[in-house]
């Protein structure tokens, strides 16, 4: 009898503590959701605003209402019928794609060397690369410009791309990721007869695929949306990248915000594609790492 009492009491105890734990969990859940929700709203607002403006007539642009009173797709037809748009889109695509390939390649190469090879001055080089992160683009554009000018790179694709063919941030990121690749992999490959470049390319690179994908997204987005440098280095409308071209919509007195927003809305499409493509690598990479014993 007594034993049964104890058992009942014990079970009611666990029931009680279980429910209080559950309510505490719900509370935490609520706060988490609320935070995430407000964060989400903050991030989505500019995009919603961009879409809304792109659907407005010029007279309505400075009304900050989200739903246009007279929605129109005229801006879209205007932008898409304007031949310059395609030209700029193409320029941006070339510049961003080539820069991304180059930056990912060289960042990974240098990051790997800094991580896995022991050589004198290694640390110094790493610090030197890192310290360039502290210099803002605005300060660099003048030397870049002078350099481009004396080499005749002004108003060329190469002129737009050269500052980004390698990035300090990417080098740092890749170095950190290569730290997670055990040396055993590389040594096994060395014994199997691969040379150092093959070891990097065939063994180390596949192991950091998620990082490569993340870096590719960053670099692509960065170059796709880059504004200041392309604005400075290009002169002819033919060489404009998309952001530079879009900003030239309108005339001396008036900025055509509705057209700029329309162009911006269209220009987000490739970034979405890039993200969707590479995101799969990131998620797959994480899953793979999770299962690796």
């Amino acid at each position, binding site marked *: 009898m007594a034993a049964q009492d104890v058992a009942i009491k014990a079970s009611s105890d666990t029931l009680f503590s279980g429910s209080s734990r559950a309510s505490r969990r719900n509370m935490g859940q609520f706060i988490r959701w609320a935070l995430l929700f407000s964060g989400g709203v903050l991030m989505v607002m500019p995009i919603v605003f961009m879409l809304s403006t792109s659907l407005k007539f010029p007279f309505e642009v400075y009304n900050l209402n989200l739903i246009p009173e007279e929605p129109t797709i005229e801006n879209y037809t205007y932008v898409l019928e304007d031949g310059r748009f395609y030209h700029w889109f193409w320029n941006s695509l070339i510049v961003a794609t080539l820069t991304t390939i180059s930056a990912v390649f060289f960042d990974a190469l240098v990051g790997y060397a800094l991580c896995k090879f022991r050589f004198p001055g290694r640390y110094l080089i790493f610090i030197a690369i890192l310290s360039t992160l502290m210099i803002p683009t605005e300060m660099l554009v003048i030397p870049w410009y002078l350099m481009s000018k004396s080499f005749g790179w002004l108003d060329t694709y190469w002129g737009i791309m050269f500052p980004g063919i390698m990035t300090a941030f990417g080098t740092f990121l890749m170095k950190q990721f290569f730290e997670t690749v*055990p040396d*055993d992999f590389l040594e096994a490959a060395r*014994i199997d*007869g691969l040379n150092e470049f093959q070891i990097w390319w065939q063994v180390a690179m*596949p*192991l950091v695929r998620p990082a490569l994908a993340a870096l590719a997204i960053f670099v692509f987005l960065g170059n796709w949306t880059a504004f200041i440098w392309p604005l400075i280095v290009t002169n002819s409308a033919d060489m404009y990248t998309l952001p530079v071209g879009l900003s030239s919509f309108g005339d001396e007195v008036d900025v055509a915000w509705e057209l700029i927003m329309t162009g911006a809305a269209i220009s987000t499409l490739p970034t979405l594609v890039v993200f969707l493509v590479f995101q799969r690598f990131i998620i797959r990479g994480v899953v*793979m790492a999770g299962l*690796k014993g």
Partner: protein
Amino acid sequence: MATLSLRNLVKTYGKVEVLHGISLDVADGEFVVFVGPSGCGKSTTLRMIAGLEEVSGGEIRIGERLVNDLEPKDRDIAMVFQNYAIYPHMSVRKNIGFGLRTAKMPKADKEKRIEEVAAILGMGDLLERRPNQLSGGQRQRVAIGRAMVRDPAVFLFDEPLSNLDAQLRTQMRLEIKKLHQRVGNTIIFVTHDQVEAMTMADRIVIMKDGYIQQVGTPLEVYHKPANTFVAQFIGAPSMNMLPGTWTGGGVRLADGLGIELPRRNATEGAEVVLGLRPDDLLVTDRKGLFSGTVNIVEPLGADTLVYVGVNGHEVIAKASGREPPQPGQTVELTADAGEMHLFDAASGEALP
């Protein structure tokens, strides 16, 4: 297949010398196990043989060839690593075949070789799997397969079993031993587990602090340890060490107890240490060498380990598994004179 010979092998990192002249001759087809505590230089030695670490001094010969300055791939060796190091982005087939990439043989022959190796390892039907679809034991088998496929002169293993659970380790131990009997290549196997060393080796090399302490068959190092370190490292639980003085006809222990021993190569009055393995120190019903009080009893099934307090210090002895003594009980302990080991107290060297 080949012999391996190390001559006065030295390794320094900066100013620190971590290997102080290792010399060893390994016969063709021999299974040699390097064993020793952490940091004694086992891996360093192995990696120098593999060509992954530069040789600071001395010579390494594989076959008759001096390989000091050869690239790993030119040394005709293969290595299996502790954490497998199989490539997660390749199938088992690709992983095993990886070492054949550069081999000059027709593709069909390579395929045949891969299937052969997979069959030996019992992995024939797993060839298309990715490593993340394999168990730990299977992954280690892939790593061994990748080493086997080139049929190297020397196999190098660096603690290949230490990531496996105890049961799997025992099983893989057996499999590697069988594999060796089947393929017959020379094997150098590094471990810090003395049971692995005892069970697998043709010969054991016991290392400590960058020096070889003893080289011998498992039975030699167990029954004729060269010094106190080897005596305590090999065999579990560790050998009991009782300090005393040599009287000419035996040992007078520190607590005054006298134990008779056959003639040894020691001068009278020398400080010595008497070593008695728990396996040889038996609880007996009759009058023994000495007696003591049982402190703790550890039943192992077949036998029982008894921790016995003798004049203020503790020794481990063995009793029957069926009728073990009880804590607090006074027991007599005995040992066969042939199983008593005598060491010089200062140098630790065995006194035969």
